[in-house]
């Protein structure tokens, strides 16, 4: 295989996982920014979102270079542990939602609730600068953006894949923000739980892979073990969901 194809094979899964995980977070942030924008004016909402993006860029610039100083095995163990905890948490929630044990996330309802809360806040005059809209927007983008930063660092740091991971995240955020702005409504048709299920599996697989490498183990077939881990997690979680749904697990 040519080096370019090899690079693509290595970067592809990282970029894909980062893209879909970041898309989920971006949809959640877009719902709040859109509600603030529609209810209180787009300028403060946009300013709040941009300020949060600047804060996230500063946080990344501050902590990013520090990663290079950490020995690779330690980095793999730490990143693997964090990715696994993060991925298993998403996968658990997605499994419970798929099995019908907890309700699906309703973006339209969250949007309506956010609009109602902002409408009731004092100073809703669209001609003036609206601090509340800016703060609500800032907080939503900062908190969801922090998750994106963790995803990018987790997926990219241990394998020297920060650029593909960041590219996937930026691509997802640009597409989601552009679509939400064009439609001017929450992206309720995004299959949030299916995405969370898939991302939970992928992130957990990367977590297991990096942790195993970090403790000195060698996976069969090297990097090609990641799709194998994805397959194992997918089969086990799908079976568990089906059994819970049918009442087979009691």
């Amino acid at each position, binding site marked *: 295989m040519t080096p370019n194809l090899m690079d693509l094979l290595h970067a592809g899964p990282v970029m894909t996982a980062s893209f879909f995980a970041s898309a989920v977070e971006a949809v959640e942030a877009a719902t709040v920014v859109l509600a603030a924008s529609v209810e209180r004016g787009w300028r403060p909402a946009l300013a709040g979102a941009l300020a949060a993006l600047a804060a996230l860029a500063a946080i990344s610039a501050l902590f990013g270079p520090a990663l290079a100083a950490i020995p690779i095995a330690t980095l793999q*163990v730490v990143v693997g*542990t*964090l990715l*696994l*905890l*993060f991925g*298993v*948490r998403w*996968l*658990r*929630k997605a*499994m*419970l939602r798929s*099995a019908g*044990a*907890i309700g699906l996330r309703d973006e339209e309802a969250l949007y309506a609730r956010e609009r109602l809360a902002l409408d009731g806040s004092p100073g809703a005059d669209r001609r003036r600068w609206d601090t509340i809209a800016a703060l609500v927007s800032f*907080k939503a983008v*900062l*908190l969801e953006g*922090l*998750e994106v930063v*963790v995803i990018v660092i987790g997926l990219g740091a241990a394998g020297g894949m920060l650029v593909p991971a960041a590219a996937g995240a930026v691509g997802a955020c640009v597409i989601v923000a552009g679509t939400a702005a064009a439609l001017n409504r929450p992206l309720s048709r995004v299959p949030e739980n299916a995405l969370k299920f898939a991302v939970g599996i992928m992130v*957990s697989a990367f977590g*297991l892979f990096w*942790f*195993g490498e970090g*403790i*000195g*183990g*060698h*996976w069969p077939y090297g990097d090609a073990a990641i799709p194998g*881990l994805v397959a*194992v*997690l997918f089969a*086990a*979680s799908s079976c*568990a*969901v089906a*059994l*819970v749904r049918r009442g087979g*697990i*009691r």
Partner: protein
Amino acid sequence: MNALRKILGKVATLFYDDASLAITVLAILALAAAASTVPGLDLEPVMAFLVVGVVAALVENVARAARAR
């Protein structure tokens, strides 16, 4: 200060929302890491334990959570 506390709280909840699952996964990782330091031990069974342990912990936790609801 309140905002900072909220942000730190949010960062912590990125990694767990069910403490028992997080603790079980951490225990499996700790066992695997400890086993990997044993001289002369083949790491293939350790890797298998890692995968099977995490999958079993997840499935058990989901089943228990579904039963409780």
